[in-house]
């Protein structure tokens, strides 16, 4: 009896779903539901990009007195782009951004992975330790920057700890030394974002099937062999995602760094975002800034398409 009812219900449902009116209703509703997001995306992409492209071939600046639409009067025949190629401050900022990334992302990855392996199985206190270890990534980055600004003062706690270890008073002026300032900034970034690596890698580590690990143990594989032959291959896509996220975010590094050093001393910690910020707000040559921004956007778009394909593949595997 119940089986029969179910069959009828299913038949009805198929009919209902197949009814052209309903399907059209779905298509129309889908269009309407996505419309606000489409408008917002268009609002922030199409028009701004065209405007950016337009301004980037002129000498326009907000101080020039004329509105941005009349920037064509200041047409400078792509001088901004040729200037950019010869702008040593831009290239050294880019290089510095790369250095920060090449130090911070691997450090965060290795520390995060090490922590994640410690948390792979249950032990007393796991939950509370886990929650505390995640805290840095939830601290407002500007506030984290201020924390480390205080820590690295010459009379601050970092030097205090060092002097207790060494036994003689240490008064290193961390943030006024070009090399040490860069190191301090990188320490702050590693402090704040290792938890993100830890969180994502642990999620991946937990997904590694236990029975395979047990089988490998029975076959005589030691911990390191199990790790390299079972765990790492299983976690490959997760590792790629985690690294991609940190590479993208680290490239934008601004808040903590700017609060700690303002890009200084001199230009010693001036990364690409800080450089653009300074040119925007101090030099006010917005035509030039537009050219820099567009150059970066084009490079990043190529990266985005690649990353997106990768993500789609991961989702297929997961599904």
């Amino acid at each position, binding site marked *: 009896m119940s089986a029969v009812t179910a069959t009828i219900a299913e038949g009805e449902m198929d009919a209902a779903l197949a009814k052209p009116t309903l399907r059209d209703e779905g298509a129309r509703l889908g269009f309407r539901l996505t419309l606000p997001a489409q408008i917002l995306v268009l609002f922030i992409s199409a028009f701004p990009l065209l405007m950016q492209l337009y301004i980037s071939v002129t000498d326009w600046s907000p101080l020039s007195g004329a509105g941005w639409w009349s920037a064509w009067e200041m047409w400078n025949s792509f001088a901004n782009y040729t200037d950019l190629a010869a702008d040593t401050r831009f290239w050294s900022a880019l290089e510095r951004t790369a250095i920060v990334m090449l130090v911070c992302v691997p450090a965060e990855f290795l520390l995060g992975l090490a922590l994640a392996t410690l948390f792979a199985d249950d032990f007393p206190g796991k939950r509370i330790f886990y929650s505390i270890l995640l805290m840095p990534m939830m601290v*407002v980055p500007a506030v984290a920057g*201020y924390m480390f600004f205080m820590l690295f003062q010459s009379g601050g706690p970092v030097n205090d700890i060092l002097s207790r270890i060494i036994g003689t008073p240490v008064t290193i002026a961390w943030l006024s030394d070009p090399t040490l300032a860069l190191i301090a900034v990188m320490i702050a970034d590693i402090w704040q974002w290792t938890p993100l690596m830890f969180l994502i890698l642990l999620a991946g580590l937990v997904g590694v099937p236990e029975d395979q690990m047990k089988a490998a143990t029975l076959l005589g594989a030691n911990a390191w062999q199990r790790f390299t032959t079972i765990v790492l291959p299983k976690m490959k896509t997760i590792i790629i995602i985690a690294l991609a996220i940190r590479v993208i975010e680290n490239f934008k590094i601004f808040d903590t760094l700017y609060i700690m050093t303002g890009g200084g001393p001199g230009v010693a910690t001036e990364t690409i975002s800080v450089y653009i*910020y300074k040119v925007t707000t101090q030099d006010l040559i917005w035509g030039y800034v537009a050219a820099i921004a567009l150059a970066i956007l084009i490079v990043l778009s190529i990266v985005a398409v690649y990353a997106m394909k990768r993500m789609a593949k*991961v989702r297929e595997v997961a599904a």
Partner: protein
Amino acid sequence: MKRSIPFEIFRYAAILAALAVTLVPILWMVSMAFKPIAEWSATGADLTWWPKNPTLSNFQFVFGESTNSLIVALDRTALKPIVSSLLSAVFGTAIAMSAGTAAAYGLSRFGAGQNLQLALIQLRLFPPMAVMIPVMIMWAFLNFNDTWWGLALIYGIVTLPFAFWLMKTFFDDMPREIEEAALVEGCSRLRVFTRITLPMMRAPLASAALFVFILNWSDYLIALLLTTREWVTIPVYMASLSSSMTGQLYGAKAALGLIAAVPPVIMGIAIQRHLVRGLTFGALKQ
């Protein structure tokens, strides 16, 4: 798997070291927030790890109730920046969540707006610094500069990718039987969405909203560029809290930093379960 005792000792030692590194910067700020001015920049032997004479004067100072024995009085209190941070983050979250949830449902159920997937990832990828020139010009044109609603609008757009991707994976995971049954009962699809799906998704919606709120609340760069005086947010106000006359107002800034840091940490712990999903655009679930 059974672990050996040396391993357990190593594990606890390593975790305790990590906890210490994690907590020292946070605790230093907490301690600083309760230190009287005399202890702010004490160095060497006088350096105090925990306030000797704990005081609330730093908090009273940023709210304008006490001058904290400083020569300078604040020209304005922290009250308005807090209101500004709250208004812009709340309304920014509202914009991102309503546009994102609707679009996620449209894509998840009706396959509408396929282009949004890539467009929104790209939106997240770009450094805000690289698109701010046109935004600053547009916002000036719209008279949105230095307003909380101008900030809310850009926050809503910047965090739209997270709202969209989070909600899309939640909708994808949701069993469709109930929706289909309601359709058979003769409900319109819009009614199914608003009366059945959304109420069922209350918990995921709340998690996604908290996640987006944390991101909006954490912004510094955008507010730095788009607000100048009237509606500066907490981080911008905090950075401006120093004067050439008195130098760094350590305690006052730490008090303000504490006020800014507490809400996202609590919310983050509350939605711990969904953090992985949120941070990886739904590519990973926990």
